[in-house]
Structure formats: structure tokens, C-alpha cells
């Protein structure tokens, strides 16, 4: 399926941004959002991820999910680099409002202001929020 589509596309590259707004385990949005991100890597697009509001919790180190009997999928964020997905943007105010700093996060990210995030979003061709 994807082979056929890659062929048909003939090299169209769009800027895709996936905006993660929800905490990782309260709802399924974060997990299913990450599944879309991984698939997008197969299409050779210009992919970036934004983390805002409770979405910043998705990247917090040391997640333990045994108690809620859900799979800890946070290691997947570390694997994104292997898929050439390296643009991870985090909203500074969202971090600060939750008492977090860049050191609490499990991957290298670019922390930016809401205004900078807005500029980044304005540059995208496709913006999908979870």
C-alpha cells in the first residue's frame, strides 16, 4: 500500500506537524497519535512534533504504568530519531505551569515560547492535533 503511494507521489514533500496536547495515559490520544507519527516516517515528509498543554507530560522521564495496567510507550519517543524525526518542539509555558524543566524530559527537544510555536505552526502544510 505505502510503496504504491510513495511511487505515485513522486517526491511531494510537505511539512507535517503533529500537535500533542493530552497527557499520555488518561486518554488514548497520545498513544494513537504516536502511531500516526511512526507511519508518517515511511512517507519521507518533513515531520515535526509539538508538545503543548498536558502533552508535555508525554515526554517526562521515568514513567511507570504498572499500576494502571497500561503499556509504557514513552521509550518510543526516544526511537523517533531512528525514523529521522528529530524536530520536537515543546511549549515553555506548558512546561513551567506544570513545574517541569527540559531536564525532566526523556528526549532532546527545542523549548520555545507560545509565539514561536505559533510561527512554527503557521509554516506547516498539514497540522494534525491529538
Amino acid at each position: 500500500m505505502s510503496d504504491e503511494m510513495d511511487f505515485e507521489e513522486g517526491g511531494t514533500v510537505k511539512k507535517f506537524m503533529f500537535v500533542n496536547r493530552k497527557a499520555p495515559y488518561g486518554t488514548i490520544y497520545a498513544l494513537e497519535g504516536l502511531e500516526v507519527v511512526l507511519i508518517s516516517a515511511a512517507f519521507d515528509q518533513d515531520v515535526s512534533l509539538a508538545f503543548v498543554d498536558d502533552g508535555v507530560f508525554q515526554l517526562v522521564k521515568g514513567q511507570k504504568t504498572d499500576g494502571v495496567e497500561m503499556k509504557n510507550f514513552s521509550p518510543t519517543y526516544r526511537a523517533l530519531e531512528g525514523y529521522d524525526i528529530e524536530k520536537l518542539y515543546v511549549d515553555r509555558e506548558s512546561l513551567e505551569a506544570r513545574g517541569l524543566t527540559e531536564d525532566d524530559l526523556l528526549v532532546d527537544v527545542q523549548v520555545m515560547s507560545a509565539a514561536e510555536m505559533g510561527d512554527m505552526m503557521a509554516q506547516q502544510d498539514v497540522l494534525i492535533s491529538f
Partner: protein
Amino acid sequence: MKIAIMVNEGPYTHQATDSAYQFAKAAIAKGHEITRVFFYHDGVNNGTRLTVPPQDDRHIVNRWSEMGTQHNIDLVICIAAAQRRGLLDENEAKRQGKNADNIAPGFRISGLGQLVEAGIQSDRLVVFGD
């Protein structure tokens, strides 16, 4: 304009699916082409033919089916999201050893690549969700 739509919430519980439908209807009336509607998260529940709403209410599933057939819109239900939530087409039911399938007419089950492809091929991808 070629427009693709993503629906992320279930029918009757959330307005997202109604808004998506009304948007599609208005866009078609203005001469735009809706190329694909991709159903994700609980949005996959828009495609079960076992839906039986009260008679004095709108029939969300049938409404999509009719629009899809009438305007040649590709109605795609995400396979991974669908399997988690108990939606199977005939082939998947067979493959998973289940004795029933429940996909509504005009819908088909496929992968997340169809969403990314819609983003690449359309002029706009409009997301309806929470």
C-alpha cells in the same frame, strides 16, 4: 479545492462528527471536492452498520454512507483503531476468527498511511476532534 477530512470522535457522544459532516456538505455545495474522510480514535464508530439511533434522531452512519456514495468520497476507517474498538470488515473478521463483521456500506478499513497520503494529496486536511 481538494479537501480531506479527519474525524476523531464518536457519533452521538461528540459534535465533531456532526461538524465534519456539515462542513463536508457545505464544501461540496460550494463546488469543492471531498476526497477522503479518515476516521480515527473513537471516530471509527461512525462506520458501524449496527448503529440504531432513535427514529426521531439523525442517522449519522447512514448519512456518511449516503454522502460517500453520492459524491464518491473515500470513507476510510483506521484498522488499528477499529480493531481495538470492535469494528471488523468481512476479511478481518475471518482473519481474526470472529463470527461477525459490522462495517457500514461505503466505508472501508485501511491503514494510517491513508491519512498521511490524504495530507499529501489534498489542498487541505481538516481535522475534527476534541
